């Protein structure tokens, strides 16, 4: 039912279904419709145009009524097409099930044969079969069915192989059921839907193929005519009486199109990725939908986020991933942003340069200022010119973030040449320097590697080199060490730390690991459910966390060499950001929460020197 609903939501598919249904009903009813005899010739009435008296669609070269011939021809074409599909499905599926169920040598031999049949362009095989059997509608039907058997065999075998290894088949075998019974009663019910879908997608082809063979004069023989042979016979009068060609031709077109529409609808309805919107293309820049004008610039930070809000709009839901976030970072400073997965830290980082995937992402408010210039709502060209040049990113998993088909050297050179007019040779020299700077041994040989030829640590060094390519002012590192093992992680961190000191880089370091914060960051902001809940110098927060969430988060981290300490997981889960509660988002999981925590909105309250701030009514540590 849900499937039909989905199908009908797709208007084109519904149209296809209706047209197809109409054609099929008319074809079925043809013998009872008040039509003239399709085979009665009347040489006096040859080539009458459409809308002549008594002949709605006119007559053909022998004076036969075209409407009647069209209906009978359609009936024949549909019957032959469906019959071919049925035969192909029956035989092909049997072959596929046998190959898939028995496996081993049986499978091997059968699939080799199938591969060989598939090595033919389909019509050659069909022509060879018709040549052997002789022209005729039944032989054309056999040829078309035979040509499509390999298609069914291969598809159904694939499904069967995955099913044959399931527990219920083993259970049936243990219960002593014979192979035939297992296949018929256990396998077939599970395979049947796939067979039906494969049939529905190929029946259009089969109708077209049999019509094609008839068109060539190899299918139905006079006086019997399907749509293909009607068209074939009309061809000699194409110039003088084009309507005799147009009538059957358009009918074939309508049938094939309605089946295509229907097939698309079925495919879309069955594809979960389309339903979840996972096949939408992210634009070059995140969409902006600011509810209020951008806030005025304050202070002179290198990079500052003011009141930034980003949400994801999926169908009717709105996920508020980032809510009114303020952050700033100065040259040579490292700011840590820490939080659980889903706390909005990555989205915050991506929002700065408009890299949040959009749709569904939308920046709904605030400003992101680089040296005072607002980047939210800046033109694509402005943003593009700054991406990688002023503000560069390092992402989490270098295997998926480096392009798999380009050599790492080419990816580095491209980063450079996107912003600087240099020759290929100069870019390569610079790329070698960069690889050396991130301490990749043998840069001369490594530069021509593809990403899959490198280790995880080496790949992440390449990512860092790429971020450094244009000497940016700010690097935003989004969990750059999460995918790496601990020793490599330590090396990468110390590399980043050195680079920051040498080049006066500002780093925004996104992580869920307090150990990393302690090692690298000057200041840290703790995020929860899209908000900053605590902010201040790293050491101060590590020593005396003020927000209950920050404290609990730290308690999750095991300390080495600190003896036995109770590790505490935080009970419960973060709230869903499409249904945020009033008051404190952490209240549900907080053991100190009171009634006051669940109403209104709780502000981020800073100390008088502005060094620390916490969003809590009852902080663990008094900050003043």
């Amino acid at each position, binding site marked *: 039912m849900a499937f039909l609903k989905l199908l009908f939501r797709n208007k084109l598919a519904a149209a296809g279904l209706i047209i197809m249904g109409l054609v099929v009903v008319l074809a079925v009813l043809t013998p009872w419709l008040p039509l003239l005899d399709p085979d009665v010739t009347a040489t006096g009435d040859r080539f009458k145009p459409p809308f002549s008296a008594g002949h709605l669609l006119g007559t053909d070269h022998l004076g036969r009524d075209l409407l009647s011939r069209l209906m009978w021809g359609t009936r024949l074409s549909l019957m032959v097409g469906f019959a071919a599909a049925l035969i192909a499905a029956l035989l092909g599926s049997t072959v596929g099930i046998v190959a898939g169920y028995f496996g081993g040598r049986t499978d091997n031999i059968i699939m080799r*044969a199938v591969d*060989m*049949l598939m*090595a*033919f*362009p*389909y*019509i*050659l095989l069909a*022509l*060879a*079969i*018709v040549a*052997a059997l002789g*022209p005729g509608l039944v032989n054309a039907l056999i040829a078309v069915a035979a040509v499509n058997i390999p298609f069914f065999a291969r598809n159904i075998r694939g499904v069967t192989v995955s099913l044959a290894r399931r527990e219920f088949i083993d259970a049936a075998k243990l219960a002593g059921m014979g192979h035939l019974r297992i296949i018929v009663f256990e396998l077939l019910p599970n395979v049947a839907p796939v067979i039906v879908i494969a049939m529905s997608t190929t029946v259009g082809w089969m109708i*077209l193929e049999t019509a*094609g063979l008839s*068109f*060539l*004069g190899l299918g139905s023989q006079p006086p019997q005519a399907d749509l293909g042979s009607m*068209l074939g016979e009309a*061809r000699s009068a*194409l110039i003088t009486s*084009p309507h005799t*060609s*147009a009538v059957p*031709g358009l009918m*074939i*077109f309508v049938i*094939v*199109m309605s089946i*295509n529409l229907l097939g*698309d609808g079925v495919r879309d309805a069955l594809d979960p990725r389309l339903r979840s919107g996972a*096949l*939408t*293309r*992210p634009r*070059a820049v995140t969409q902006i939908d600011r509810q209020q004008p951008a806030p005025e610039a304050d202070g002179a930070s290198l990079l500052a986020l003011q009141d930034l809000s980003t949400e994801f709009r999926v169908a009717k839901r709105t996920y508020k991933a980032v809510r009114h976030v303020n952050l700033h970072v100065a040259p040579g400073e490292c700011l840590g942003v820490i939080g659980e997965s889903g706390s909005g830290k990555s989205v915050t980082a991506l929002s700065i*340069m408009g*890299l949040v995937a959009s749709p569904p992402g939308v920046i709904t408010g605030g400003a992101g200022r680089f040296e005072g210039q607002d980047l939210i709502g800046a033109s694509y060209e402005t943003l*593009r*010119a700054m*991406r990688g*040049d002023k503000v*560069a*990113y390092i*992402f989490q*998993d270098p295997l*998926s*973030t*480096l*392009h*798999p*088909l*380009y050599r790492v050297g080419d990816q580095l050179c*491209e*980063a450079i040449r*996107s*912003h600087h007019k240099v020759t290929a040779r100069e870019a390569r020299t610079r790329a070698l320097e960069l690889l050396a700077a991130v301490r990749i041994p043998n840069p001369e040989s490594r530069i021509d590697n*593809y990403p899959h030829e490198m280790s995880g640590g080496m790949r992440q060094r390449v990512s860092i080199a790429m971020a450094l390519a244009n000497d940016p002012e700010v690097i935003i590192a989004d969990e750059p060490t999460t995918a790496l093992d601990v020793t490599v992680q330590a090396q990468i961190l110390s590399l980043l730390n050195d680079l920051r000191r040498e080049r006066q880089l500002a780093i925004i370091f996104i992580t869920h690991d307090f150990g990393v914060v302690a090692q690298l960051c000057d200041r840290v902001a703790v995020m929860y459910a899209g908000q900053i809940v605590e902010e201040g110098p790293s050491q101060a927060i590590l020593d005396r966390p003020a927000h209950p969430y920050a404290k609990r988060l730290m308690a999750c981290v095991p300390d080495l060499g600190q003896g036995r300490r109770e590790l505490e997981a935080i009970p419960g889960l973060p709230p869903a950001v499409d249904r945020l509660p009033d008051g404190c988002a952490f209240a549900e999981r907080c053991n100190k929460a009171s009634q006051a925590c669940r109403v209104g909105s709780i502000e981020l309250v800073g100390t008088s020197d502005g060094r620390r701030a916490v969003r809590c009514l009852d902080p663990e540590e008094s900050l003043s």
Partner: protein
Amino acid sequence: MTSYILKRLIAAVPVLLGITVIVFLIMAMIPGDPATAILGSYATPENVARINRDLGLDKPLVVRYFIWLGNLVTGDLGRSFSLNRPVLDEVLERFQATLILAGVSFVLCAILGILAGVVSAARQYGLADKLITFVVLIGISIPSFFLGMMMILTFAVNLRWFPVSGMYAIYGGGDLPDLLRHLAMPATALSVVATGVIARMSRSAMLEVLRQDYIRTARAKGVHERKVIMGHALRSAMVSIIPVLGIQAGFVLSGAVYVEIVFQWPGVGRMLVDAILKRDILLVQGGVVFVAACYVLFNICVDVAQSLLDPRIKT
């Protein structure tokens, strides 16, 4: 790379052998005996026996296969009785014409299809996307033989832009411009369906790729969007588009049969249909084996192209 090509060629040998077996078996299914078919009204028992002996038809099936295969390998595909000339000569001559038609169509559908798919994906849900999706839907639903007939009616008969049929003008033709004028309509008619299919596959391949993390990386580097689409994204998408091109080449080759009939193009397809109607079995057999073998070799080229594009494929 050479070793990879060599490996693929060696792997193709069993497939080629399989093709010969299949064609041979299909032809062996022919009811009645070919001798009677060849002799027609001269089919006296003595004549039949003699022809059977001459053709080696009195020997067992397996022996006959190997005799036939032996001849095949040495380039002897037998003699066409309807044309009274060696099958190989006829097939080679006709295949040239088919190659021109199908080759041009294939290049056309590959370029236009990929381009349409890329634009469609880059402008997803935009006007261009909707327009392309609609045109593609129409395109993949029109049978090439019907489209060809309508094109003749419109562009040759009414508008007189192109010649109605044939490959060269009978008088004064024979040069390249003449060929192109004759080629324009059949090549277009032949490429429409494949263009549509390729456009669809390219669109979904592009959409899949555009969501990948490395596309975000390219954008974060400041690579221009045009280069992101036509470089980074298309290159990855090609990995899944190329196999589709290989399959569509088969469909173009198949569709050529219809188009050759409609436009009186002197290619292999028309030769095969004529041969079937005249029951010239050796000509059918030779033509089918030859074209199928060419298609297998073409698919090796596709695999090689794939391995050149994707360094992750072990060569």
